[in-house]
C-alpha cells in the first residue's frame, strides 16, 4: 500500500498552508509506505505526484467562508473551494482531472482544506499557523484510516 500525503500551495501567505503542513508531517515522520510530497503547481504536476500511489491525502488552503484557520475534510465536489491562484486556471481540480485521464488518480483520495485569511508576504497568518496542529492530527487519522481500509480489503 503506497500512500501519498500531498501538501499543495505556493509560497504566498496562507496559500502556503499545504506546504507548511507537508514540512511538519515530514519532520514528524509517518508510517512505512507513506510519503509526504509538496506540490506547487498542482494543475500540471499532480499526475506526476500521484504516479504509483494507491491512496492519497491532499491538503491545500481553501476559501469556503468558514472561520479563518478552520480545518475540514472536503467531499470531492468541494474541490472548487481549494484556493486556486494558479495561472491559466490550472488548479487542483484540473490536476486531479488530468491525473484521472491519465489513469493516475488513486481510488482512495481524501481532501483536506485549511481556511486561509491572507497572510503577509511569505508568512502564514496566525490563524492558519495555529491550525497546523489540528490539520496534522486530521491528516494522520486519514492516513491511518486509508491504511486500515487497505489492510481489511475495504474500499
Amino acid at each position, binding site marked *: 500500500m503506497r500512500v501519498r500525503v500531498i501538501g499543495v500551495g*505556493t*509560497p504566498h501567505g496562507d496559500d502556503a498552508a499545504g506546504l507548511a503542513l507537508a514540512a511538519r508531517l515530514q519532520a514528524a515522520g509517518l508510517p512505512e509506505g507513506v510519503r509526504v510530497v509538496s506540490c506547487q*503547481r498542482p494543475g*500540471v504536476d499532480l499526475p506526476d505526484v500521484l504516479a504509483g500511489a494507491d491512496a492519497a491525502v491532499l491538503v491545500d488552503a481553501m476559501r469556503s467562508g468558514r472561520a479563518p484557520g478552520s480545518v475540514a475534510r472536503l467531499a470531492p465536489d468541494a474541490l472548487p473551494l481549494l484556493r486556486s491562484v494558479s495561472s*491559466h486556471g490550472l488548479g487542483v481540480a484540473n490536476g486531479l482531472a*488530468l491525473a484521472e485521464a491519465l489513469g493516475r488518480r488513486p481510488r482512495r483520495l481524501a481532501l483536506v482544506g485549511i481556511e486561509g485569511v491572507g497572510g503577509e508576504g511569505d508568512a502564514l497568518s496566525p490563524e492558519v499557523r495555529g491550525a497546523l496542529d489540528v490539520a496534522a492530527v486530521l491528516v494522520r487519522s486519514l492516513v491511518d484510516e486509508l491504511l486500515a481500509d487497505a489492510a481489511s480489503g475495504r474500499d
Partner: protein
Amino acid sequence: MAERRTIEVGALARVEGEGALHVAIEDGAVAELRLDIYEPPRFFEAFLRGRSVTELPDLVARICGICPVAYQMSTVHALESAFQVEVHPQVRALRRLYYAGEWLESHLLHMMFLAAPDYLGLDDGIAVARDHRAEVERALRLRALGNRILVLLGGRPVNPVGVCIGGFHRAPSRQELADLGDELRRARGEAEALLHWFRGLPVPVRPQPLELVALRHADEYPMNEGRVVSSDGLDAVAHEFDQAFEEHQVPHSTALHSRIRGRGAYLVGPLARVWLNRERLSPTARAALDSLGSRFAQPDPAASVFARGIEVLEAIDEAIRVIDAYEPPPPPPGWSPRAATGHGATEAPRGLLYISVTSDARGEVEEIRIVPPTAQNQACIEQDLRGLVPTVLDRPHDETRRACESAIRDYDPCISCSVHFLDLTVERRSPCGCG
C-alpha cells in the same frame, strides 16, 4: 444600407490573465477590432522604487508564475551592467541552463495544454490527455525535466529565489548536474517524437508580412545576450531600446502597446527567435527546422507551435552542453552600488523582455522599467486578427470565435505579465437583424 455585426469573446480561455476580444464588422470588413486587456494594473514599476537592488531578483520573480526566470535574468543583467560586475563564464553557462529549464516548462505547457486542444477540436488539456495519453505523458516527462532545472538553480518552482547579482546563491555540484544530463540525453528522442506528433495535427496556416524581433548573439542561440535585431534590418543594443521602440497607451488595454519607431507592430517570441537565429540552432534543432521547411518559408504566427517544439530540442541540447562542460563557479564577486542606469534584454519564453533599472549611490531603486513580451505583441495580435476575421466570417459564429481565440493563443499571451487575459466578444451587427 451598411450591414454591421459584432463578434464578442467575453473571456478568453487557455491564456494567462484576463482579457477580451471585440470585433465589429461592417459590410464584411473589420470596422473595429480591439484586444481588450482589462487586467488591473499591477504597479510593479511604482512599488519597486525605493527597494534595495539586492531584493530585485526575488521581487521581479513574482511578476509571473510561468516565466520568473526571464524577469530575474533581465534584471540581473541590467544591474550588473549598471554596477560593472563581471560574471564568471560558468555562471553565464548556468544561466543558460536555468533559462533552458524555463523554456522547457513554458513551451510544453503551451504546446500540450493550451494549443493542442485547438488543433484537435477539444475543450481542454484534460480531453487531450484522455484521447492522446502517450503524447501527454511524454510532454509531462519533458516538462518535469525543466521543473527540475528550475528547482536546482532557483530553489523552488514558484517564485524562485536562487539568483543574485553576479551569480547564484548556491551553485550545484557536478554530480547533481550529471544525473540530470543523463536524463536529458534520453529525453531528446522524446522531444523529437512530440514535435513529429504535432506535425501531424491540422495546425492552421496564416502566413503574413511581419517584422520579427529577437536577440542575436555572435555564435549562440539567444537567451541572455545578444543584439536586438529584426527581420527588417533593425540592429541595436539593449541600452538603445528606447531609440528603437516606443510604447504608447491605448484606451482598451491596461498594458502599453509597442511599436518600432517609424514603422509599427512587430512580433517577438519563439517564431522570431527561430527565424532570426536559424544558423545558431543545435544540429538536432536545426534538423527539426529543416524538416518543417514549408512552415518556415514565410513568417506565420500559427507556426509558433513548431517554433516552440524546435526550441524544446534546442533547450535540451543547450542544457546537455552546459552540464557536460560544468565546473562549479567561485562564489559571486563582491560589488558596490553606484548611481547608474543599467539595461537588460533577454529572451523570455514568449519573447524579448527589456528591463532598465536606475540605482542611486546607496543601491536603492530610483526607477525601473519593464517591457514584457506580451505587451510588445499586442499590436501584432490585433493586426493578425484584422487579416483573419474576414476569412472566417462565413463560418458559424462559434467557429469564427474559435478561430479568433486560437489565433490569439498562437502568441501564448501572458496577460498577467503584460499587466493578465481573454474574453472574446464577436458582435455581428446588422440593420436587417440577421446577424
